[in-house]
């Protein structure tokens, strides 16, 4: 009985993971070369930055907010790092630290505006998006190539894993970020308060939780995730460019939501988000392996796969919840 109840609590996560593997199996059956460890790991290599960004988004959504500045902040990070590395020749690790600091400051300002002046997160972060994008262009409208040795080394380094397959350092960073995020979400007061705020902000206040500090902290965390994601993205792209990460905020939000995070707040997990990212990655890979679709059919195919996935997720979850009430019933007849 206990197990059943447990599974119902993690139901949406389980369904999501299950569907992900189903999708992957589908691709493996259909396309040669799809089913390989490397192709699986490529999902991580190619999406490391998105995983990190979506972690931040997940926290913000859990706390009942929204942040659409993330893509632009990523772009700003790439550009500013490139500028500092190439034009100012700063130490690469100093640059990374500065970037994270900038993310925290950016989040701090956004969070403070949202908390103290009760401004809507959507607008504040939309303005944040304009601002970051604009600043990127102000630094340089030309692409700045990152030729720094350390960045090059990190970008090209391949960590061998089982059987000739490899991962990149970015993947390691993403995994560590994921673990830390999971720890914050489930084992710290800060994380739990975020859930409470998302569940019911007014109640959280009345329960005597430090709502303001947590809310601002969450946006700072979001900012840090965006910049970390930007750093990883600059390993990936090795350049600063105004159009990097265009529209990435939607990918990030979609990943979190597909992974089971509620936009209304209070519910979600970073592991769900990881699978949200992987699912989008798999859908993309499937379409790429297909290789005969025209540009428009590509979009339609991506949407159809996404739609199938979401509908299945919705139906499966609903069915199982009905089952859950049956469990409840038998529970009662025992007592």
């Amino acid at each position, binding site marked *: 009985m206990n197990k059943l109840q447990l599974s119902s609590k993690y139901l949406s996560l389980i369904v999501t993971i299950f569907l992900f593997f189903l999708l992957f199996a589908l691709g493996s059956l259909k396309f040669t070369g799809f089913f390989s460890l490397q192709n699986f790991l490529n999902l991580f290599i190619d999406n490391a930055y998105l995983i990190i960004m979506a972690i931040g988004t997940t926290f913000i959504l859990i706390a009942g907010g929204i942040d659409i500045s993330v893509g632009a902040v990523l772009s700003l990070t790439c550009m500013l790092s490139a500028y500092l590395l190439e034009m100012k020749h700063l130490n690469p690790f100093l640059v990374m630290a500065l970037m994270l600091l900038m993310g925290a400051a950016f989040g701090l300002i956004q969070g403070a505006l949202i908390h103290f002046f009760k401004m809507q997160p959507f607008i504040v972060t939309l303005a944040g998006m304009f601002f970051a*994008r604009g600043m990127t*262009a*102000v630094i340089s409208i030309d692409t700045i190539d990152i030729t720094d040795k350390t960045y090059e080394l990190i970008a090209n380094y391949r960590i061998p894993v089982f059987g000739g397959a490899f991962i990149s350092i970015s993947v390691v960073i993403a995994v560590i970020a994921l673990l830390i995020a999971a720890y914050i979400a489930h084992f710290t007061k800060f994380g739990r308060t975020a859930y409470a705020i998302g569940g019911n902000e007014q109640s959280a206040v009345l329960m005597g939780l430090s709502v303001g500090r947590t809310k601002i902290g969450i946006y700072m965390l979001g900012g840090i995730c965006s910049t970390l994601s930007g750093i990883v993205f600059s390993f990936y792209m090795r350049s600063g460019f105004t159009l990097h990460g265009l529209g990435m905020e939607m990918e990030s939000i979609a990943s979190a939501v597909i992974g089971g995070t509620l936009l209304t707040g209070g519910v979600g997990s970073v592991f769900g988000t990881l699978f949200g990212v992987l699912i989008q990655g798999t859908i993309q890979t499937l379409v790429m392996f297909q290789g005969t679709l025209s540009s428009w059919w590509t979009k339609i195919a991506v949407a159809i796969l996404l739609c199938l996935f979401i*509908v299945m997720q919705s139906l499966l979850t609903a069915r199982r919840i009905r089952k859950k009430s049956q469990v409840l019933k038998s529970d009662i007849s025992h007592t």
Partner: protein
Amino acid sequence: MQGLKDRLKRWSGSRLFWPLVGLVLVLFFNLIFVEGFFSIEMKDGHLYGRIIDIVKNAGCYMLLAIGMTLVVATGGIDISVGSMCAISGAVMAALVGGELSGIPHHSYGIAIAAALAVSVVLGLWNGFLVAKLEIQPVVATLILMVAGRGIAQLVTQGQIITVYYKPYAYLGSFTPGLILPTSIFIVAIVLTMALVAVKKTSLGLFIQSAGINRTATRYSGINVKKLIYMVYGFCGLCAGVAGLVISSMVKAADGNNAGLGYEMDAILAVALGGNSMNGGRFSIMGSIIGALIIQSITTTMYALGVSPQVLPVVKAVVVISICLIQSDDFRRVLADLFKKDGRSQHEQVAVKL
């Protein structure tokens, strides 16, 4: 003095007050810094000037904002409106056809009707996902946002269909015989429709109610699902009309670029209009003002020749400032700062104006 104070108090209590202040501030700025901003002249039988441009170009934002306001009021969001614009424009252009001779393939009326019908169907599809399958609105509409561009390009076969049929351009600019841009009349029609629906029937009450407390609304015997279908369907219709205007403005259908990113502007218009993104109480007129603010900012930027790079930075600062003015808490902080001079809060407001 007392009477003025009272009146000021009553005005500032209105939901439209602060959005209007925002708009006035932007226009006021223009009055000072942009030469001839308010000058209007007659040209080829219609009015011509920057202000007219603003109204004309804000038309599609207004249309999108009307639909979006209702969606947001139910606690939802629709990020597929930009794509729906592209589809509707594509359908219309494809039916009218890109003949150099300007002879339409199908009659213009049929083309418009078909485009709008498609838009409504797409809107209902969003409604189906949200109401029936209970998928969260962002992802539900994300599907159409992604697919929509593909569908639009499928319709146009990836080409930009340029239409040479003369009346095609009327919707997006001027119709012979009317001195104001056609989009004003279209907005007026859609706006009236929407206002009648929410003010003269109980739809407005129901939508707010559903946006604030869905459970309680359902318990009160209101069919929330039907309501959601309706609202998304209407939003689709608005997007469709906007798509026609957008396509007509450039006399072409561009599956990829038409309405690109407009969903964000529509949402921004709703928010600038003083509406809460969490649903509930809404003001369509507020969103209309929001749309005007957005377009005014853009026009101002062009007029001032703000360099393309810093354009977004300036936009960010303006948006934040307008929202700060709307924030009660910010005004309170500001008032507290000034209070040391012994002036009352309301006088403060007056001074700031």
